[in-house]
C-alpha cells in the first residue's frame, strides 16, 4: 500500500488540534459534527438507493471527505459565496442548501435545485450563495476569483470560497486565477481537497513535488497543508483564511489531505474494480473524520450516546423526507428542454 506523504504532518497537527479543541465552544463542535453527519447520511442514502436506478444522473460522492466542507463553510456567512466541483454535495449542504431540492435534482425532478436539468454535477442555490458546481475540473476557480473581485469593487463584505481537488491543481485555471487573486488581494479562499487521486491516477503519478500548499509561495500568499479529516483543523484553517479575506489580506491556499472512500463516480468502492488497494481504503476508514470527532465529543463529554442517537435520528428523518419529496415530485415538462437557453 501507499505511504502517503501527508502522514507525519497529520500526527503533529493532531496534537495541536486537540489542544485547539478546548478553545471551541461545545455548540460550535456540535454544529461541526452535525454538518459532517448530514453529508455522510445524505450520501449513504444515495448509495443505498442508487441501485434502484431511479436516480438518473452520475453521482460523485464525498464520503470520507466531509470534514473539509463542514469546517470551512462554518466560517462562511449566508452572504458569502461558494463555487464547487463535480463532487459538490457536501459543499452544498454545508453552505446551507436544503436536502429536498438537492435530492430531487438527482432524480431529475422539476422540484430540484436546477429544476431537474442539472443533476448532481450542476448544483446551484443562489439564496444560499452557492453559485455553481460543474463537471469541468478547475472550471469554477476563475469564477470564484471574479466573484471576489466583484465584491471588492462594490466594497461589500462577501468573501468567496472555492473547492477543488488535487487534479484541478494541475489545470492552468488554478495558476491564472491564484495569480490574479494574489495581485488584487482578493477575498477568496482556495480549498484544495487532496484525496490523492484524480479518477484512478495517484498524485505521485501526476505531480513531481506533491506539495500543493507550497505553490502559494510563488504568489507570496499563505499556503497551509492540514489534515482534512480533522474537522477542527479545517475549521481553524478556514477561520484564519476567512479573517484574512475579510481584512483585505488577500487569498489563502488551503490544502486539506483526505481520502475518497467511494469510486470516482458512483456508489461502489474502487477496490472492487481493482482501481485502488483495499488496504489503503481500510487505513483511511480508521481515520474517518466523523468517527474521530465523535470519539472526541464523547470523551470530552460534549455529547453523550443518547445525544448522538438523537442527532442521527433527526438527520435520518430529514434524509427520508428528502427522498420522499424527490420520489413524489413530478418530472419537468418536455417543453422545459427549450427554455432558459437565452433570456427570452
Amino acid at each position, binding site marked *: 500500500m501507499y505511504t502517503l506523504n501527508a502522514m507525519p504532518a497529520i500526527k503533529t497537527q493532531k496534537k495541536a488540534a486537540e489542544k485547539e479543541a478546548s478553545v471551541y465552544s461545545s455548540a460550535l463542535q456540535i454544529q461541526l459534527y452535525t454538518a459532517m453527519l448530514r453529508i455522510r447520511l445524505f450520501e449513504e442514502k444515495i448509495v443505498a438507493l442508487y441501485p434502484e436506478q431511479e436516480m438518473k444522473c452520475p453521482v460523485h460522492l464525498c464520503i470520507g471527505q466531509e470534514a473539509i466542507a463542514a469546517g470551512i463553510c462554518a466560517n462562511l456567512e449566508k452572504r458569502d*459565496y461558494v*463555487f464547487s466541483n463535480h463532487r459538490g454535495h457536501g459543499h452544498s449542504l454545508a453552505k446551507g442548501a436544503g436536502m429536498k431540492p438537492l435530492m430531487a435534482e438527482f432524480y431529475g425532478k422539476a422540484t430540484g435545485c*436546477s*429544476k431537474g*436539468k*442539472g443533476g448532481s454535477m*450542476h448544483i*446551484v442555490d*443562489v439564496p444560499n450563495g452557492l*453559485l*455553481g458546481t*460543474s463537471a*469541468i475540473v478547475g*472550471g469554477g*476557480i*476563475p*469564477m*470564484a*476569483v*471574479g*466573484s*471576489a*473581485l*466583484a*465584491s*471588492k*469593487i*462594490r466594497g461589500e463584505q*462577501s468573501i*468567496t470560497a472555492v473547492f477543488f481537488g488535487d487534479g484541478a491543481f494541475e489545470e*492552468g*485555471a488554478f495558476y*491564472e*486565477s491564484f*495569480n*490574479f487573486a494574489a*495581485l488584487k488581494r482578493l477575498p477568496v479562499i482556495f480549498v484544495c481537497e487532496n484525496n490523492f487521486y484524480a479518477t484512478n491516477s495517484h498524485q505521485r503519478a501526476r505531480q513531481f513535488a506533491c506539495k500543493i500548499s507550497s505553490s502559494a509561495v510563488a504568489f507570496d500568499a499563505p499556503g497551509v497543508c492540514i489534515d482534512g479529516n480533522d474537522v477542527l483543523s479545517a475549521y481553524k484553517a478556514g477561520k484564519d483564511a476567512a479573517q484574512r479575506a475579510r481584512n483585505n489580506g488577500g487569498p489563502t491556499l488551503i490544502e486539506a489531505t483526505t481520502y475518497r472512500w467511494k469510486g470516482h463516480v458512483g456508489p461502489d468502492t474502487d477496490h472492487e474494480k481493482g482501481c485502488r488497494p483495499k488496504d489503503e481504503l481500510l487505513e483511511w476508514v480508521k481515520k474517518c473524520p466523523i468517527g474521530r470527532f465523535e470519539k472526541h465529543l464523547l470523551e470530552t463529554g460534549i455529547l453523550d450516546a443518547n445525544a448522538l442517537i438523537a442527532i442521527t435520528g433527526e438527520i435520518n428523518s430529514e434524509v427520508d423526507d428528502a427522498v420522499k419529496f424527490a420520489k413524489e415530485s413530478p418530472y419537468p415538462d418536455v417543453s422545459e428542454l427549450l*427554455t*432558459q*437557453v*437565452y*433570456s427570452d
Partner: protein
Amino acid sequence: MAKLNIVQAINSALKNEMKRNSDVVLLGEDIGRDGGVFRVTEGLLEIFGPERVIDTPLAELGIIGSAIGMAAYGLKPVAEIQFMAFSYAGLEQIFSHAGRIRSRSRGRFTCPIVVRMPYGIGIKAPELHSESAEALFCHMPGIKVVVPSSPYNAKGLLTSALRDPDPVIFLEPSRLYRSIKTDVPDEDYAIPLGKAAIYQEGKDITVVAWGAMLHRAAEASAGFDAEIIDLMTLKPFDEEAILNSVRKTGRLVIAHEATRSGGLGAEIAALVAEEAVMHLKAPVIRVAGPEAVTPMAKLEDAYMPQIDRIRKAFATVMEF
C-alpha cells in the same frame, strides 16, 4: 454629432454605458494604462479609475472566467481579448460555463458578460492575429455573437450588448477599425440584437455578409441589382430578413472571409434550402476563405475573397 471611426465609436459606447451603469466594469490585458492593443479603451482608466478599468495578468481563461464570476455576483463585466485566436485559451469558460449558466441554474442566475475581441484579417499579421472563427461561437447554445460593420452600428450594437441579459461575443473587424469614419451621435442609442439591416436594396440577388466583407460585397455589386444584407448579429441571426429577401430576388450569395467548411454561410444556405427552396432561381453560392491558415501579409489579399470572385458569383447566379 462627430465623425468617428470604429475604435472611437466603441470607446464612446463603453464610456456612455459606464456613466449610465456603474456595474459596467472592463477587464483585459493592457486595457487600462495602455488603452488596449488597438487603443479601444483609451482614456477610460482616467475617467473611471482602476477599479472599473482593470489591467489583468496575461491569462485569457482567467480573464473570461473572472468575468463570469463577476457577472454571477451582479456586475456587468466587459472582457477584452487582444486577438480572436487568443480567446481559444479561454473557450472552456465561454463554452462550458458562460453559455450554460442560465440553463444550468434554470434562470436563477445568468451570465451577462460581453467579450470583445478584434477578428478577421487586415492588419498584416498572420494566422493567430487574423482569425475569423465566428462559427465556433455560433455553434454553442446560450451565446450571442455580434459583428458591426460601421462606426454607427458598432456603437449601437455594443450598447445593446452592454444591456443584454445574455453573454455576447462582440467581434470587431480589425480591418475596419480605423478605415471608415461615419457620423456617430454623441448620445447613446441601441441597435437591437438579432436584427439584420438592409445595407443596399436590390431586386435580383440577395447578398448576405457581415463585418469587413460587407464593404467588399457592396463594392462588388456595381452593375448588379443586388440587395445586401448586413447580418450584424450572427447568433441568433435574422432568419426572416434573409428569407424575405430571397423570396423576392430568388438568388442568394453569401460572402464571408472565414473558411468555407462549417462556416456560417453553410447555415444560411441550409436555412434557405429548408424554408425557401421553391423561390430559388439559381443554386446558392458561398464565397468564402480557403481551407488554409490565414497567411502572411503578401498573401492576405489572396486569402480574403476578392471583388472579382464575388462578382463572378453574382454573374453565375444571374446566368444560371
